[in-house]
């Protein structure tokens, strides 16, 4: 496994919705070695406060030189990121962690909720390169957060359905409600989003005996397996570390009821 500490340059900053931002970063080492589902640790500010880097999954690999990060502004770290301008430096470490397994499943379903949609665009790009049939279910608070992303998944040749909390686009309700009817014929499922959404997805896939992988998140200090801070409850009564054993895990490895 190869990881790099790379001084990236901001190429573009997009505000996709109220609190949804997307950075395009020139980071050749990380871009050329990232797999869908892997993440980077980004040093959001130049000083000691906020102190720790923040983990972001790779949203997209634009080419062999650049990647994109999609994030919601939720605190001081992401506020600093949203204020970046083209030409600014952003220190990254990556690519980190275990990404999505891509097997020979010819028909797959991707389920993304909120900012959890971030790693799925990169995954969809990889899957569509080999002509897999991809159904993409996207959920979010409101239509604005999904508009641009829907366009991009469609452009890859994915079949997209959306759900919104406020009913402003697509189904008025939870994205996981859309999943049941979509699973017919699906050979593999991938999910990233709020824990209840992933738990519901895992449950439906288990019932349908469909392999399911989820991408989890947790607070972490290093992203490297050293701080041991990013634990989630796993089955078999053990803790899993998101940074090294994940962030992508097989759904049955996670103790969803804890």
């Amino acid at each position: 496994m190869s990881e790099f500490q790379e001084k990236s340059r901001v190429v573009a900053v997009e505000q996709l919705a109220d609190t949804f931002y997307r950075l395009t970063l020139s980071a050749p080492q990380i871009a050329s070695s990232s797999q869908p589902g892997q993440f980077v640790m980004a040093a959001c500010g130049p000083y000691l406060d906020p102190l720790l880097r923040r983990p972001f999954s790779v949203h997209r690999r634009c080419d062999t030189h650049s990647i994109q990060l999609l994030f919601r502004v939720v605190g001081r770290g992401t506020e600093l990121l949203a204020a970046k301008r083209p030409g600014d430096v952003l220190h990254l470490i990556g690519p980190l962690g275990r990404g999505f397994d891509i097997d020979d499943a010819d028909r797959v379903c991707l389920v993304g909720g909120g900012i959890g949609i971030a790693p799925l665009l990169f995954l969809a790009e990889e899957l569509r390169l080999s002509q897999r049939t991809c159904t993409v279910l996207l959920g979010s608070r409101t239509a604005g957060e999904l508009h641009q992303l829907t366009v991009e998944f469609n452009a890859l040749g994915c079949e997209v359905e959306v759900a919104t909390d406020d009913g402003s686009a697509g189904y008025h309700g939870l994205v996981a409600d859309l999943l049941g009817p979509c699973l017919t014929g699906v050979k593999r499922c991938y999910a990233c989003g709020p824990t209840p959404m992933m738990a519901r997805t895992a449950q439906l896939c288990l019932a349908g005996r469909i392999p399911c992988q989820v991408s989890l998140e947790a607070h972490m200090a290093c992203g490297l397996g050293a701080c041991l801070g990013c634990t989630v409850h796993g089955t078999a009564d053990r803790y899993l570390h998101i940074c090294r054993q994940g962030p992508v895990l097989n759904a049955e490895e996670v103790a969803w009821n804890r």
Partner: protein
Amino acid sequence: MEQMNTAPDMSVSLGPLVLTNPVMTASGTFGYAEEFVSLVPLHELGGVVVKGISVAPRAGNPPPRVVETPCGMLNAIGLENVGVDRFISEKMPFLRTCECRVIVNILGDFIEEYAELAARLTDIPGVDGLEINISCPNVKKGGVAFGTVPEMAAAVTRAVRESTHLPVIVKLSPNVTDIVTMAKVVEDNGAHAISLINTLIGMAIDVRTRRPKLGNIIGGLSGPAIKPVALRMVWQVASAVRVPVIGIGGIGTAEDAVEFLLAGATAVQVGTANFYNPSAVCEILTGIQKYLLEQGEQSVQSIIGTLRLEG
């Protein structure tokens, strides 16, 4: 300014343990070194202090385990580790390849466990020294008491010394009324060197949920926020004991490290900085060398404890 042409001598001695330079990594912040292999030239380090090892493996605390605080972080990992058997069989083979000093941090709930660990690790090739963790605040029994009760600290230090011929460092907890008393007691009972400080016990609350931000409710504060406290304690201890002192606490730059050396530390350990800047250890090393050249000093030893108090 006139500069020396030759590189300054960076070597230091922690009692019987000689280091090529005074910059080490602190226990619990550098894993078992293999985690940093692609980011840090490990052979350049003065030493690696590995994640604390207990007799049996420990699963650690429930999440959340870390939370960021102003210029610092709280952790309540709960001493998660692979246990001494797996440490020896799975972690030591890599550590032997690092070409740097390997110090094994040991912890236990009972004095007998510390003695057992010391004996087990004594003849393991590649283990250069032991650091006794009497100060980790996260475990309800044992950890706190050993580090805060002088008689207990004395007994643990003595038991470890009697169980090994390896150099023994005792790592002190700052969560005591009088750090100098603790330092003198471990010195009197055979510590070859004293490292300080471990984390300061702290807490953070999410006001919206009214719940503690850590699964363990309380945890250890580390990072730049604690540096002034650490520096004060290192200065007090270094002024009061004869054995070498290792400064720990919020060190992230060469200037931080030099402060500790001037205050009397013979070496330093870099901790939380490994998380936010894995290059910190190497930057600190080259920064100390640059400082020595600028100051016209021929060795790092010549600046240790040279804090000026008069005039």
